[in-house]
């Protein structure tokens, strides 16, 4: 049996390593390891809880708003602060466009090259490409001249002999199946999406001062003032720019992303039976109504792929294990800790670098193993869409049924690598259509003369109780995100974040249960073990928020190219 090591896994955020055992061209077992540790939760102890959003924002610069949102919600929950409607609506707009932009970048720039062979685009006929594109979308740039220009640009680039970031990839791999025209269409949209993303995210600059790392979050509200009669505040001019950019975002998602997703998926339908994973799904729900607090995206849990039952979520039932993670709990092994009691005491026990293999029977990752009632859970757009679908959320149901009908598959197809990738598109479209609703609500509210953006009463720490604890939940692009905080004497006493990629990239727990990446890889075919393109497909379908590399080696540590796969 050959052991494949992929480290670094590229086209993700962060540092991720996958080790997998392959037999007869199929993965028999897999281990997911994060190879980087900073210890920010430890660093946070003793600091001002109002600063926590700024610190935790640095967990990730890709989903650059999500930890700020979860953090201010956690502190507000602990201190029982109710924020003004305008602040809630501005946050909803920031969340919505973050999801939309992040999903498009993921599809085109992080995931597409697993399905699209750029080198094949050189052989495409631009006229045929244009008719293919016209058959699925009315996007105005889908013209023969545009596709020809892209192809010429690509040719000139290749002719320099320096392929830069496209060098040394798995081009020509037998698992690539798109015709040259589809490859050219996707390549053209890869470049267009690159331009589009920097435009639409200007919404964060208007409402948040900059992106990445917007800087207008506050415990108790937002710091962007509202005043239609001031040039130094959110006024009609800025609101209309946000409106225009939201329309631009929605247009691209409807006319480019979704048609491309469906077109590409139709060539890879066998991937609807690969990469299912743990089969348990968790969503915290999001988009609170500014008045009632009701969530537009519902919260819930689905177990064992049973879409006849939706279970409620109870924050008390979340616990993290470290039996295969490089940490030690004071209370010893085999037990999970609720985040309020959480500990982050690093204790590396892996091999001394440089190393070839991790000892996957022992501890092998910097990621902890979060479990819900001791069960591993998958989080992310698929979980969010499934929970909404099962709860009867009408907007979600309409889009899911449309996608399933176009691909000619049933709901069971969603439990797969392809289902995960399709659900991200569905989630993106839902966000693209819902975010303008919050902008309209904001404009209406301002029109009524409400300019409030911050609840001031509890800004000064002197107003706080001696002790408080709270949690903040958020559905980030990559899924269910929770921050738990305990405040003592106006300072952070304990802080724990259980992030989407902690759920999904988790190693085994005390019972030996695999995490979602690990479970999803089992059964994945690998045509050429020295070019494990299929591993990237399944791992990227989760949109990991760690960084990675992949080698293929046998159990004695030789490069796989020298190994016979038995």
């Amino acid at each position, binding site marked *: 049996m050959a052991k494949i090591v*992929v480290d670094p896994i590229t086209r*993700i955020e962060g540092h991720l390593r996958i080790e997998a055992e392959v037999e007869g061209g199929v993965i028999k077992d897999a281990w997911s390891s994060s190879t980087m540790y900073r210890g920010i939760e*430890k660093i946070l102890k003793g600091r001002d809880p109002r600063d926590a959003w700024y*610190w935790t924002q640095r967990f990730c610069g890709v989903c650059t708003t999500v930890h700020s949102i979860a953090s201010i919600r956690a502190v507000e929950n602990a201190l029982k602060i109710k924020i003004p409607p305008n602040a809630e609506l501005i946050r909803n707009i920031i969340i919505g466009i973050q999801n939309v932009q992040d999903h498009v970048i993921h599809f085109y720039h992080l995931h597409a090259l697993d399905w699209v062979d750029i080198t094949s685009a050189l052989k495409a006929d631009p006229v045929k490409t244009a008719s293919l594109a016209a058959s699925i979308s009315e996007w105005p740039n889908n013209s023969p001249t545009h596709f020809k*220009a892209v192809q010429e640009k690509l040719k000139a680039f290749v002719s*320099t002999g320096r392929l830069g970031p496209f060098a040394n990839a*798995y081009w020509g791999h037998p698992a690539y199946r798109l015709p040259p025209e589809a490859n050219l269409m996707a390549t053209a949209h890869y470049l267009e999406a690159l331009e589009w993303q920097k435009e639409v995210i200007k919404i964060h600059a208007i409402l948040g001062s900059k992106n990445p790392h917007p800087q207008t979050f506050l415990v108790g509200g937002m710091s962007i003032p509202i005043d239609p009669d001031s040039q*130094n505040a959110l006024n009609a001019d800025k609101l209309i720019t946000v409106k225009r950019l939201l329309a631009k975002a929605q247009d691209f998602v409807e006319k480019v992303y979704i048609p491309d997703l469906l077109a590409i998926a139709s060539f890879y339908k066998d991937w609807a039976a690969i990469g299912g994973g743990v089969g348990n799904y968790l969503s915290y729900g999001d988009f609170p109504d500014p008045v009632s607090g009701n969530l537009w995206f519902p919260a819930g849990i689905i177990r064992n792929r049973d879409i006849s039952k939706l279970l409620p979520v109870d924050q008390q039932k979340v616990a993290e294990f470290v039996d295969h993670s490089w940490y030690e709990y004071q209370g010893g092994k085999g037990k999970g800790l609720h985040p309020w009691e959480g500990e982050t005491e*690093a204790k590396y026990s892996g091999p001394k670098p440089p190393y070839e293999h991790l000892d996957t029977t022992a501890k092998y990752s910097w990621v902890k193993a979060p479990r819900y009632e001791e069960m591993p859970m998958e989080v992310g757009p698929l979980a969010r869409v499934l929970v909404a679908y099962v709860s009867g959320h009408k907007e979600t149901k309409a889009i899911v049924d449309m996608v399933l009908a176009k691909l000619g598959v049933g709901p069971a197809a969603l439990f797969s690598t392809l289902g995960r990738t399709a659900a991200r598109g569905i989630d993106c479209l839902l966000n693209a259509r819902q975010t303008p609703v919050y902008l309209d609500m904001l404009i209406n509210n301002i029109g009524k003369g409400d300019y409030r953006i911050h609840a*001031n009463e509890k800004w000064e720490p002197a107003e706080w109780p001696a002790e408080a604890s709270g949690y903040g939940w958020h559905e980030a692009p990559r899924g269910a995100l929770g921050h738990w905080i305990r405040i003592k004497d106006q300072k952070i006493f304990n802080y724990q974040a259980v992030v989407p990629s902690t759920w999904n990239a988790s190693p085994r727990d005390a019972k030996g249960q695999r995490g979602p990446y690990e479970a999803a890889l089992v059964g994945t075919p690998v045509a050429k073990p020295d070019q494990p393109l299929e591993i990237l497909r399944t791992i990227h379908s989760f949109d990991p928020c760690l960084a990675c590399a992949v080698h293929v080696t046998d159990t004695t540590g030789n490069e796989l190219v020298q190994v016979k796969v038995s």
Partner: protein
Amino acid sequence: MDSKKAISEEAGGFSVARLLQERGVSRRDFVKFCSTVTAAMALPATMVPKVVHALDKVQRPTLVWLNFQDCTGDTEALLRSANPTVGELVLDILSVDYHETIMAAAGHQAEAALEKTVKEFKGKYLCVVEGSIPLKDGGVYGCIGGKTFEQIAKHVCGNAAATIAVGTCAAYGGIAAAVPNPSGAVGVREAVSGATVLNLPGCPCNADNLTAVVVHFLTFGKLPAMDSHGRPLFAHGKRIHDNCERRPHFDAGQYVEKWGDDAHRKGFCLYKMGCKGPATFHNCPTQRFNERISWPVAAGHGCVGCSEPQFWDTSPVYRRLPNVPGFGIEKNADTIGLAFAAGVGGAFAIHGAMSALRKDKPAAEETKKEGEE
């Protein structure tokens, strides 16, 4: 070393200008681009022809980008860059041979691509580092392909023509190095002694400043002049407070007292809300972000001082800076930066400031001389 000449060799036979021309970029747009970056470098307009001439000649240089203890925020900043766009940077201007976030290859093939570049362009390629480097316990807190970040940095930065440390983490250790620095995180200069390193701090760094550094390097064949924290003077030579659009309100004693109050809506000074502009040296007020749309103060939130070494331990976000009116606009970072820093925090913040003083070696003395020509 004449780095400009060095990186021009063997770079593929096309000048940047010719490549741009072949991509349909007009001469007029090319000159416009040169003017923009010349302005970003705070150089006079008379220098534009020199930039144009240099980019006409220089051939698509090789760049590798390493991610260590980071959040990928600086990469995201690069993706938002407009002059030039990331598409132009990656396809036309540079040969980006390694960048884990965008590259198609993974695992063994990715490592092979990096190794090939280090070997073939030894001493000629530019390296960008994002994220800090953990040194504690043999560097086990950060590994790629089984090797520690420290091992990789020594190899790749050590063989580069120059390294640009983007973001406060790569420059000074950043958030991971905040007290109690659980992983022993440091910046590139401290991890790789002897390497030629320019710091471009900020959280994240401003992509326009990064582009300007790259163009400066291509144009003049060396890194721009730096201050004692290793930062380019063109971007970090002036205090935010002195360039701030709200400075008149500070001088007039008009302050925001509460979030959302009348003064806040009118755009008065954020000093009382904890703004660190008086102790921070960065071109945010003029360069701004996302194609100059905004920057924190313009959006109603104080500056947090993110481009100052060890700001994490010395600048609680909402704590007011002491003694601000005592300083004039002629001061620079080397004379007053740390004086502020040490004054801001409580006991453990001061601990951080002290470690900052110890850590931040004045490595820039010679580079400053060189830069002054």
